């Protein structure tokens, strides 16, 4: 089945904003309860990074869950099934169509300034982060070290909680005590600031270099049902690289580990998307 060209970019922005950013973080009752949502939906995860400590978060973060299972040393049956099923069908599409951190990167890259590329060898860093920070260190230390350093967690959970800092309804004290804000908090803020600046000058650097969720989906990209194809008579004009939010050269790198299946490249008439095994 060949998918015809539509105004898919508008749909993508809409789904990133409405599903990824708003619906996933729609627990507005927190304003009254002063406590994050703790109901049954929090036991499920979304297929993209979304800090479950965000005051408005309704679902869990899959990477937070993975660290949790590594820390308690139990096999993550649900998560593994979730990754295999979604990965085999759409590969890394959630990065392009749903991830709110990806949306922020796309927005910030629109700021007009001098732009830079990212060296290819840095693409492998995300696998190191996945194995070391998400699996090995939590397994041995019982601590969620990726979450402690995650810049998106800092943005949607760390900053809002410290800025708001409501009175705990159970204990009558501030939720964030002054001595809770230590070196780790400032380190996290520094990492966030570093990435925010990088987002302005490079295309989706967090997705390409550091995202462990992207690293998991990337493993399925070449075998997923959703595939892209450049026509044989492609004139190699590199226009697709300009359309691509991951700066891929579609003719040779389509469906590679960094392709987020966003459909932006089908702006070019030589590229088509299809569901094919």
């Amino acid at each position, binding site marked *: 089945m060949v998918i015809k060209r539509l105004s898919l970019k508008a749909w993508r922005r809409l789904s990133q904003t409405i599903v990824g950013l708003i619906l996933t973080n729609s627990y507005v009752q927190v304003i009254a309860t002063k406590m994050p949502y703790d109901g049954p939906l929090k036991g499920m995860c979304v297929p993209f990074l979304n800090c479950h400590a965000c005051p408005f978060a309704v679902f869990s973060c899959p990477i937070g869950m993975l660290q949790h299972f590594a820390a308690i040393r139990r096999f993550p049956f649900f998560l593994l*099934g979730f990754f*295999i099923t979604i990965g*085999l069908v759409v590969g890394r599409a959630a990065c392009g169509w749903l991830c709110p951190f990806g949306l922020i990167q796309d927005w910030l890259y629109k700021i007009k300034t001098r732009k830079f590329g990212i060296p290819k060898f840095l693409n492998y860093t995300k696998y190191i982060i996945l194995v070391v920070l998400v699996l090995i260190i939590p397994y041995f230390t019982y601590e969620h070290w990726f979450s402690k350093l995650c810049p998106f967690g800092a943005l949607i959970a*760390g900053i809002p*909680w410290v800025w708001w800092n409501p009175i705990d309804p159970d204990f009558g004290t501030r939720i964030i005590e002054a001595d809770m804000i230590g070196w780790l908090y400032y380190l996290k803020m520094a990492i966030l600031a570093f990435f925010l600046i990088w987002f302005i000058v490079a295309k989706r650097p967090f997705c390409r270099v550091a995202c462990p969720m992207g690293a998991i989906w990337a493993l399925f990209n070449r075998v997923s049902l959703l595939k892209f194809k450049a026509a044989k008579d492609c004139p190699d004009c590199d226009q697709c690289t300009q359309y691509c939010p991951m700066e891929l050269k579609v003719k040779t790198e389509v469906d590679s580990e960094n392709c987020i299946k966003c459909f932006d490249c089908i702006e070019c008439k030589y590229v088509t998307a299809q569901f094919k095994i």
Partner: protein
Amino acid sequence: MNLPRTWKIILFLVGIVIGILLMLAGIFKIDDVAQIRLEGSEL
């Protein structure tokens, strides 16, 4: 991959079935999906 198409289809379907079975195993409490630690924003 240069596998014959039939093999690709079989492997894909096997993968999907394994994925769904793992999810069901997780939902029916082989692991404890609901036991996510929410002890905060890890400030």
